[in-house]
């Protein structure tokens, strides 16, 4: 599903540069649910962004579903992102002047789907996250948990191969976090591959595998027994 070999990335800071990723090797197979952990500055978000094609690696190989991801044009990257990846962000990143349904339908718009079809499909995904009644509401009229669920519905809308979550529960209280995690686990149960960045131990333990980063290298990569989130809800 996902193959990363000897990935390097550095950012220029003034005259010098900051070496963030120092040779990452990572392989994820279909149906996995992986938590990437590390303190701030460990490079975990950078890794996720490179996997998400939101950023580019300086060196190394990245193969997604058999496709080498290298030297992509902006246009091609846009097509790949749309086709392969779904994003869930800490701050939801919904478009504030679009209602829930329109936000969920946006990736489908960029796929070139017809309006009626994409509205129908978006509604289907909203129902799935339990927000069908809130379809016409703007993000500011929804709670944090609801917004994150809209974001999840949006990430699912284009039926991506890989779901990327960057601190999906970072902006939510514990109870809502558990609700969201329960939902993400359910998606994984249905077969979605999920990659998640978090710095919270209990959230990480709800995944099936934990990859720990420190100073740009992988310190530990272990399979864990999944803690189900439903029990807290």
């Amino acid at each position, binding site marked *: 599903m996902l193959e990363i070999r000897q990935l390097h990335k550095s950012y220029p800071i003034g005259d010098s540069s900051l070496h963030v990723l120092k040779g990452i090797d990572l392989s994820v197979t279909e149906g996995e649910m992986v938590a990437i952990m590390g303190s701030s500055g460990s490079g975990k978000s950078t890794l996720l*962004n490179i996997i*998400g094609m*939101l*950023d*580019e690696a300086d060196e190394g190989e990245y193969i997604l579903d058999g496709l080498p991801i290298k030297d992509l044009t*902006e*246009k091609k990257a*846009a*097509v790949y*992102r*749309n*086709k392969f990846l779904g*994003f869930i*962000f800490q*701050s939801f*990143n*919904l*478009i504030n*002047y*679009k209602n829930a349904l*329109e936000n969920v339908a*946006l*990736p489908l*718009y*960029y*796929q070139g789907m017809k*309006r009626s079809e994409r509205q129908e499909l978006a509604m289907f995904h909203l129902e799935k996250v339990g927000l069908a009644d809130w379809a016409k509401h703007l993000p500011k009229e929804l709670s944090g948990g609801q917004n994150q669920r809209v974001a999840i519905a*949006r990430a699912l809308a*284009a039926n991506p191969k890989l779901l990327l979550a960057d601190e999906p529960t970072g902006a939510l209280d514990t109870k809502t976090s558990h609700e969201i995690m329960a939902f993400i686990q359910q998606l994984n149960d249905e077969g979605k591959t999920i990659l998640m960045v978090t710095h919270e131990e209990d959230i990480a333990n709800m995944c099936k595998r934990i990859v720990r980063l420190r100073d740009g290298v992988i310190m530990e990569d272990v399979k864990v027994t999944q803690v189900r989130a439903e029990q807290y809800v």
Partner: protein
Amino acid sequence: MFDLDLWREIFQSINMNRTRSLLSGFTVAFAILLFTILFGIANGLKNTFAEAFGDDAKNSIFIRSGRTTKAHKGLQAGRRIQFKNEDLDYIKEDFSDKVEFITARIYSNVQASFRNEQSSYPLRGVHPDHQFLEKTIIEEGRYINQNDLQNKTKVVVIGKQIEEDLFKKTTALGKYLNLSGIPYKIVGIFSDDGGDYEERIIYMPVTTSQQVYGNNDYIDQINLSYNPEMNYDQALAFSSTLTKKLKNRFSVANSDQRAVRVRNMAEGTKAVSQMTTGLTVIILVIGFGTLIAGIVGISNIMIFIVKERTKEIGIRKALGASPRSIVSIILIESIIITAIAGYIGLVIGVGVLELVGPSLKDYFIKDPGVNNSLVIGATITLIVAGAIAGYLPAKKASRIKPIVALRND
């Protein structure tokens, strides 16, 4: 290709971000409004000038006589100079290649009556050429002709205000107008751009006038127009030669300013045309100034808008928007806003001019108005400027890595 979804996206963005849309729209509308009003007022000023100085032929020369102020060739000062028919003929023959139209004028005032209505009017004895010199517009009938001159016929041409004054219940053409007891047939009715005063004048053949009022061949004034192909310097040279020859003919000292007075309208015309040129330059400066202010305004707003939308651009890119779709969504939105706002500014501006235009006549502003294509051109300039000003930051924004844009909180 018409992409309905793209337009839907754009109109939603305009509609849901009203403050932003209104702000940018206001800048453009205001710039076009100012542009329209300033141009309109300046045009009104120009119209006033054109009207004030455009009534009589611009290439006219008026020649009058008076008393000598200096003794010359043994003749005393204070002698009265009187033009006669032969003087007019002399000018006509001596300057035949330079004179276009020439006429005499004999001034007097008459009591005119028709049936019970009567009033006093200025009377002018003239040659047929007078019509072209004074730009008299014949509304009905004809002007004085050569036949009238030769036969000293008792005919008159009257201004249309006289017809209104005296012929309340009937029309004037063909009727007989009684001037101090003598009936004259009305052969023509005229109007004149010079206003009501000019339309209360009675014209009659110069020969008739000479016979009836004095039985002599005296002339009060000679009006002529020179060949319009002559330029300003040639025109001035012509009038100074004319002055010299006339002074010589009447044995008047060259330095005598009163005895023979030649007034060349070209001198005034030059001042007017310089004034109009000056006005045009001012108009252009004002117009360009307003336009540049508008361009700067819309550019600033476009940069602000792109900055404000950076995060949205990042989200859209993360969801699979191509750079092209990002640029087009921003550009088309700005073009729509600029076009609509420009049109509103134009409509308001023209409306204001229409509304207050008539009341501005007292302030030397006549018929203020604008050339529509000019204002539309200005609006298009603003749209293009807004598009260029929006394109560069939009292009830049479409190139930033989504992750950078997303971090932009």
